[in-house]
């Protein structure tokens, strides 16, 4: 099949950047979207041009590296699917597709489609962990955890840290990511103990990293490749308010 890509090219953080159109006449419906870029890059290399820079690693939907906004939608049109798992059979022959990087103040563009997502790491560093020293843990069976809690914690824990939620949110907010992590840890007895300080630290780190405020728009959950439910934000808000209340 033949596709036309309009891709955001930007030489570096200081460059203004703009869309550039490329034809890929030899695409196949079995290709993944990233393989389409591989094919294009191979051609650009052959003609001496710089290939399009984009983030990717596992190519199986789990590392969270891939990060393309395809026709305005982070990770493209297929629900619950990362860019690397999106295949061209979901596009029409002859279609023209716009490809852009994640856009947010907290995610400055490094080059072309590659952005800096270290803000997400800073949120975790602020409190996204259980203070469990290595080497001297209690017996794993000492604390049974109700299956429902364990399952709900797992659901929240499946977040791959891709940042699509931020890319989709009209406010550039990372609430879904932050709340998913806080929910995962807060639901487990091991993590409950320090939930107050955790959520307080995480929301501050979130705001300091230039992410916007959540107004419950719900775009984030719609694009989240792991389908993290919006409910985690409600729970997180309750925890933040509760922490503030108990802190007084």
């Amino acid at each position, binding site marked *: 099949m033949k596709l036309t890509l309009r891709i955001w090219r930007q030489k570096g953080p200081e460059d203004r950047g703009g869309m550039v159109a490329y034809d890929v006449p030899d695409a196949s419906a079995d290709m993944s979207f990233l393989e389409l870029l591989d094919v294009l890059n191979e051609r650009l290399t052959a003609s001496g041009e710089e290939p399009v820079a984009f983030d990717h690693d596992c190519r199986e939907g789990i590392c969270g590296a891939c990060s393309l906004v395809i026709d*305005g939608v982070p990770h493209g049109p297929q629900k619950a699917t990362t860019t690397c798992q999106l295949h061209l059979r979901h596009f029409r022959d002859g279609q023209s597709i*716009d490809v852009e990087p994640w856009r947010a103040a907290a995610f400055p563009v490094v080059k072309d489609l590659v952005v800096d997502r270290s803000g997400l790491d800073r949120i975790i560093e602020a409190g996204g962990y259980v203070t469990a020293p290595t080497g001297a843990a209690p017996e794993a069976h000492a604390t049974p955890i109700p299956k429902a809690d364990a399952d709900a914690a797992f659901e929240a824990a499946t977040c791959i840290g891709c940042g699509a939620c931020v890319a989709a949110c009209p*406010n550039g907010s990372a609430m879904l990511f932050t709340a998913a992590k806080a929910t995962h840890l807060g639901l487990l007895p091991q993590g409950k103990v320090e939930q107050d300080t955790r959520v307080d630290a995480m929301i501050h780190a979130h705001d300091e990293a230039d992410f916007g405020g959540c*107004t419950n728009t719900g775009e984030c959950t719609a*694009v989240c490749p792991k389908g993290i439910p919006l409910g985690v934000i409600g729970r997180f808000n*309750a925890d933040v308010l509760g922490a503030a209340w108990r802190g007084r």
Partner: protein
Amino acid sequence: MKIAMALSGAVLLAYLTAHMLGNLKIFFGESSFDHYAHWLRTIGEPLVPHEGTLWIIRVGLTVSVVVHMAMAILLTRRARRARPVKYVHRPPVQGSYAARTMRWGGVIIALFVVYHLLDLTVGVANPTGAAGKPYTNVTADFEHWYITAIYTVAVVAVGFHLRHGVWSMTRTLGRQRPGTERLMGRVATGYAVLMTAGFLSVPFAVTVGIVG
């Protein structure tokens, strides 16, 4: 900031609910409705002076509106800052329209409230403009289809705003758990539909001629 937004929204919400219910009194006839308007001005008398309680309400409302709008502006500016470069390909709406239209919806409502005050409270924009005779004023209004249209647009905007507003408020205030999420969604929708219907019933009733 979000909390101020939600709390001020909640005050407006309470007022609006009361207001809608009050408006329904129009179905009980002119005197009932006018009496209600009069009563509004005399609650608490003689403890508080004439229109005292009303003014307290008005002050409360004004404060809420100011806070609410200020917060809306701040949040919007923060959102702009958080996405300094826009997408070239404008993102299609993935979530809900009600959510995506909060800001413009809010502006429409604000404009409407100004007009509405001039219309029914101050009276300058009213076809009759009879002070102390709200029933007359209201019925005079909705004899004209375009005024009905203005109100309809505004009330529908309010409906959307409330649908998302109520739902969002419960979330912001952390009153939602993953389990209660769908329930809350339905409550919000139901509430918004009731409010819209309640408000709309008056102008349509007048226009169609059931009242007046």
